[in-house]
């Protein structure tokens, strides 16, 4: 299965990362993952491989951005504080505040969404209903739900751009 799809997965990963070398590396990691995991019966093996590939890429993107942000914060700290403290230990109380601020910022942006997009977004993303169920509840098509949520995500991205 993997052998047949290796070529297209590599092409996908190169497009997804924009980096041929990283794509090769990820294909290798993907192969290791599926060959050791013995994933068992899967309905759609191709979609399964693509989804794992997506997760691997996102893990890296997330880690890269976190590192960039941390480096930025560290630099800020150094310019303000003359005698630097240990750079790592951020008190957990501060983490709690950051989490709360994050949720408040997201909630405010969600509250400001256009009505239809906001309702579809809340039902699907916050209340956890599948697309089909949201479509039934709002009396629109499934693709209409996806369009609403895409509009909502675009608004949120604009509102939360750091």
């Amino acid at each position, binding site marked *: 299965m993997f052998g047949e799809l290796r070529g297209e997965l590599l092409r996908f990963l190169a497009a997804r990362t924009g980096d041929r070398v990283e794509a090769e590396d990820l294909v290798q990691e993907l192969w290791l993952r599926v060959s050791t995991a013995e994933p068992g019966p899967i309905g759609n093996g191709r979609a399964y491989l*693509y989804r794992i590939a997506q997760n691997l890429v*996102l893990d890296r993107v997330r880690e890269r951005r976190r590192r960039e942000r941390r480096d930025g914060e560290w630099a800020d700290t150094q310019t303000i504080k003359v005698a630097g403290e240990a750079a790592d230990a951020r008190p957990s109380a501060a983490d709690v505040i950051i989490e709360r601020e994050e949720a408040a910022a997201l909630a405010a942006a969600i509250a400001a969404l256009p009505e239809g997009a906001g309702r579809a977004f809340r039902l699907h*993303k916050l209340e956890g209903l599948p697309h089909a169920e949201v479509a039934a509840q709002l009396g629109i098509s499934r693709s209409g739900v996806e369009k609403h949520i895409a509009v909502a995500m*675009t608004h949120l*991205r604009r509102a939360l751009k750091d």
Partner: protein
Amino acid sequence: MNDAILEAAALWHQGQARDDMDWDGFTAWLEADPRHREAYDDIALLDERVDNARGAILASLPANDGEASDDHFEARFPARRPYLAWGGIATALLVAVTAGSWWASGPSLPATTSYAAAAGQTRTVAVADGATATLAGGSRLDVAKGAALTLAGSAYFDVRHDPARPLTVNVSGFEVRDVGTRFDINSDGKTIRVAVAEGKVSVAASGGAVPTEVTAGHAVVGDVARGTVTLVTAAPASVGAWRSGRFIYDQVPLSLVAADIARYTGHPVTVAEGVAQRRFSGVLAPGDRDSMVASVRQLAGVSVRREGDAVLLGGTGG
């Protein structure tokens, strides 16, 4: 970056959960313009931020939209208000968890201690230095001194990082091994699911199978008879949400949802073979068996049939 690109990225992102996702089309879209990749990264990470903060966002959003159309909305979807009004229930259950906390101490500790939580209740116990387990109603955990834990049912684990002493939980022929994390295990004896909210665990069928690593935001579903596992995504906010009185499901096999309801209410709920492995996503308000089963029927579109004292989901003829 323009809105059209972000919208397209968000549409592709939603499509990937579907089995008929056009992966070739997605690849071609990514190749067409380097901005597409960047937009997709932004959307995927934003989606994750929302998932991670879901509980807190719900808590800080107003309880209803305050619009004239709300009555209409409410009438069509009676399940909505209970969900938004759960704050009180969650608080009550948290109190119950605290009151139920108990740790057998003293010199007469037997070799194996069994902890059980009654139907509809949760119970938090200290299972090792720096590790606690919160048992879902109707579940049992056996703790042997210096040995692995054995779980029947469902429990949430919170383990302080200690590489020298990993915690191992045996459940229905699988071994879940952890060195510092928060995760949730659920088993009905035929299917297990291990979902990770923080950190990383490894899951393997007992008897030396190669373990599968499960990181935060993911879960594995294990087939007990075959000893195989399947990796899926799982919103961290959904992991162990039952502890605060919310049954939040993200791609959970229907058989485990039924097992949760049965344990929580203390009344049997079974699932027809044909739909047992169907993935269920949605939120159930805690209640009696009939109301919880009715929500599942509505959300999953499965039939419900009574057979004596038991309730069968997804049987034929419905």
